[in-house]
């Protein structure tokens, strides 16, 4: 019996929006900055696609605050 997703749509739609939003935000930040506090560009680009955890991790420990504008 296929799992019925309909009751979960109120969750899934906003979740998808948040996840995609985080990935895009993180990707933009990774690609527009040259230096990172930890890790390198390839790592953070890949991790940006790891839902929620990846982008959050990037903004907490990967992002360099000495960033050029």
């Amino acid at each position, binding site marked *: 019996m296929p*799992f019925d997703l309909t*009751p*979960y749509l*109120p*969750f899934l739609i*906003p*979740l998808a929006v*948040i996840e995609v939003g*985080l990935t895009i935000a993180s990707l933009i930040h990774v690609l527009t900055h040259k230096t990172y506090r930890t890790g390198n560009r390839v790592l953070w680009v890949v991790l940006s696609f790891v839902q*929620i955890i990846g982008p*959050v991790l990037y*903004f*907490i420990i990967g*992002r360099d*605050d000495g960033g050029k504008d």
Partner: protein
Amino acid sequence: MRAYLAFTKKEFTENWRTYKLPILLVVFLLFGMMSPLLAKLTPELLKSLSDTGGVVITLPEPTAMDAWAQFFKNVGQMGMLAIIIVFSGLMATEFSKGTLVNMLTKGMKRHTVVLSKLTAATVIWTVSFLLCLAVSYAYTAYFWDMGTLHYAFLSFFSLWLFGEFLISLLIFGGILFKSLMGSLLFCGGVIVAMTILNIIPNITRYNPSSLSGATLELLNGQKGLSEFMPAFVICAVLIIVFSAASITLFNKKQI
């Protein structure tokens, strides 16, 4: 007063531009969604497990109270962890980077620094918490009949108060050790100490740690208000004590 407003504004700018505020908002938004979702999913997951195992379990339909149980568990554990991680550098980074020197030699009072940081962290935590609560409430109301919530305000307030307690610990630890690690370890140490104290019979009534989740029993009516009142009072007193101690300690700190 002007220095206080200016420095508090600086705190908000800092939390926004260093992505701490946006991250907390997103994380707590997710916690808010997760709690009712988990409550709704758990029976389904168990059912799919029991299908393969051949064991038949009859499961009660989840209720609003299951969603709130998830809420207390998620916010009380992971939510508090998020608070600790995000605010652990509140005082410590100012010390380790030496950014306070310019501010203090400009004539800013030291207690202004502490009060500004406390204000900013409190506002950010309150907004994050309310967002989480509102989302959780909306989903729970959408899926289930809310039923009776006993002492709704106090039950939720207890979680908020415990978060506030952690913030005051982090600020105090940050000033005491002037380092991020010190701030983390101090806060962690107090939490561990409170957990160990719980071994003593009947102490949970007085232990602030019971405010980080156990007040579900207040919400669902299993326990009365008197069971938690001492913990409330002690927690509130400790917040004031640690905040005052932070200011006194900071006034004596060499920079």
